[in-house]
C-alpha cells in the first residue's frame, strides 16, 4: 500500500482541498448567523450576508454624507500608502544594513549587537514616544512600522549574507574582486531574493503596526474605521473590513512571491 506521505493530490484536488476550510468557515458562519437572527432579529454580532452587501454598497459605492468621500477607498488608499512607504523604507534599510553588516566584519562588530537590541524593543512600547516626538501625523505611523519591521529585516538579510559559502568569497577574491566588487557583484545579488523572503515574513507584523497606529491616532484608514465603528458594535462593517485587509495582505504576499520567481529564477528551490 502506498504510504500517506507519498500520496499527492491532483492539481484540481489540491485547489479543492485548499478552498475547503474557507468554505467550511463560511457555512458555519451562515448557520450561526441564521440561528442567532432567528432568536433575535436585531442581533448585531453575526449579521446576515445581506447586511454585508448593504455595507459594501454604502461604504464602497456611495459618498459619505459628511465628508463627501467614498469611505472604503479612502481608507484603503490611506492605509496602503502608509504601508507601502514604510515597507519601502524598511526594505532599503534592510538590504543596505544587511549587506554592510553581513559583508564587512568591522561593521558587523559595530552595528550587529545594536541592531539585535533594537529588534528586541517592542515597537508598541515606543509608540507614545513616536507620537510625542513626531506628532500625530503620518510620520509617526510610518515610523512605527519601520521601527517594528526594519531591524528584523536587517538581521535576517545580514544572517543570509554570512551564510554564503566561504569558498565563494575566496574564489571571487582569486578572480580579483575588491571588497566593493565582492559586495556589489557577488553578495548583493544573492541577497535580493532573501530580502523578498524577509519582507514576506514581516508583512504580518507590518499590518499589525499599521492597524495599531491607525486605531490610536488617525482620521482615516482601515484600522481607524474598524476601531471607530466598534463603538456601535457594527460587525457588518468590521467583518468585511477584516476580510478586505486579509485579501490585501494575501495579494501583497503573492505578488512578492511571484516577483521572486520571475526576477530570481536561479534562487528557486529545485
Amino acid at each position, binding site marked *: 500500500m502506498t504510504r500517506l506521505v507519498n500520496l499527492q493530490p491532483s492539481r484540481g484536488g489540491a485547489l479543492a482541498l485548499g478552498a475547503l476550510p474557507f468554505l467550511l468557515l463560511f457555512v458555519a458562519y451562515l448557520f450561526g448567523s441564521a440561528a442567532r437572527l432567528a432568536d433575535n432579529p436585531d442581533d448585531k454580532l453575526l449579521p446576515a450576508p445581506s447586511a454585508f452587501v448593504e455595507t459594501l454598497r454604502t461604504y464602497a459605492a456611495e459618498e459619505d454624507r459628511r465628508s463627501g468621500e467614498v469611505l472604503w477607498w479612502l481608507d484603503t488608499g490611506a492605509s496602503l500608502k502608509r504601508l507601502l512607504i514604510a515597507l519601502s523604507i524598511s526594505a532599503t534599510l534592510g538590504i543596505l544594513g544587511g549587506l554592510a553588516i553581513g559583508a564587512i566584519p568591522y561593521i558587523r562588530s559595530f552595528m550587529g549587537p545594536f541592531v539585535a537590541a533594537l529588534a528586541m524593543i517592542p515597537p508598541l512600547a515606543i509608540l507614545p514616544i513616536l507620537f510625542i516626538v513626531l506628532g500625530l501625523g503620518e510620520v509617526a505611523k510610518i515610523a512605527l512600522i519601520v521601527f517594528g519591521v526594519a531591524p528584523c529585516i536587517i538581521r535576517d538579510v545580514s544572517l543570509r549574507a554570512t551564510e554564503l559559502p566561504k569558498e*565563494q568569497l575566496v574564489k571571487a577574491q582569486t*578572480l580579483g574582486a575588491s571588497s566593493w566588487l565582492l559586495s556589489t557583484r557577488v553578495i548583493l545579488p544573492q541577497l535580493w531574493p532573501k530580502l523578498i523572503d524577509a519582507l514576506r515574513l514581516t508583512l504580518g507584523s507590518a499590518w499589525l503596526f499599521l492597524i495599531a497606529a491607525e486605531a490610536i491616532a488617525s482620521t482615516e484608514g482601515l484600522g481607524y474605521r474598524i476601531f471607530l465603528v466598534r463603538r456601535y458594535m457594527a460587525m457588518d462593517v468590521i467583518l468585511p473590513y477584516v476580510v478586505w485587509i486579509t485579501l490585501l495582505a494575501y495579494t501583497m504576499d503573492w505578488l512578492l512571491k511571484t516577483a521572486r520567481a520571475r526576477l530570481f529564477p536561479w534562487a528557486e528551490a529545485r
Partner: protein
Amino acid sequence: MASVTVKHLWKEYDDQVVLENLTLHVADREFVTIIGASGCGKTTFLRLLLGVEQPTRGQLLIDGQPVPPEPGPDRGIVFQRYSLFPHLSVMDNLMLGLEFSGSRWLGKLLGAKRRAAKEKAESLLEAIGLQAARDKFPSQLSGGMQQRLSIAQSVICEPKILLLDEPFGALDPGITADMHEIILRLWQANRMTIFMITHDLKESFQLGTRLLVFDKRRNDPHAPERYGATVTYDIPLNRKKQTAPVPDLAPLLAARRA
C-alpha cells in the same frame, strides 16, 4: 614565472601541530599532485598558498616573495564545490574575472571591452565543451560541468599558480578521464604551476609532474596533535605522463600502510 619555495614551514593551531618543518622547492610550470591521509595538512598547505592562513614559523615564498596575506588573482583556486556563483549564468561566471579586473567600480564590461572579454570566454567555453550550456545557471549543470566551469573561471584570469582542492573528489569516476584531459590541456596552454590535492592515487601519478605525499614522520598515540605532517615522499614523475603507463603503486601503498 611562479616557483614556490618553502623553508622550514610550521603551522600550528594553539598546541596542535599541523605542518612540521616543511622544506620544499617547486619549479615554475610544475604540476604537483598531493596525496595523504585525511587531516594531515594537505588542505592547510593549500590554504597557506592561497593566503587565507598564515604560517606560524618559516617562510612560504612565491618567486622569492612572501605569499600575500589574502587571496589574489595571481593564485587561482578550485574547491570541491561552492566555487561557482549561483546567480550568474555559465557565460557570466566565466567572464566574472575579466569584469573584475576590467571595471573597478561597476564590475561590468561594456561595449568593445565586453566583446573582447566575450571572445576570450568563448574560446575557453569551447575548450571545456560547455557552449550549449552558456545561458544556464550553475545549479542546472551536472557536477562534472560545474567543475569544468570552475577551472575555466580561474584560468581565464591567467593565474601564475592554480590550486585544486580535490576538484574531482565528488565526481563520477567515469567522467574524471575527460576532466584530466581538460586540466592538462589548460595547464599546457596557460603556463601555470599547479598544486592539486587528490585522494585518488592513480590520478596523482597520471596527472602530475611531481608527487608529494604528506604524512606524519612521528606519531604519539596518546597525543596525536603533538606532531605535524610533512612531505614524506617527493616523487618526480615523467613529464610525458599522459602517454606513459601508470607506475607500480604497490611499494608506495605498502610504505603508507607501515
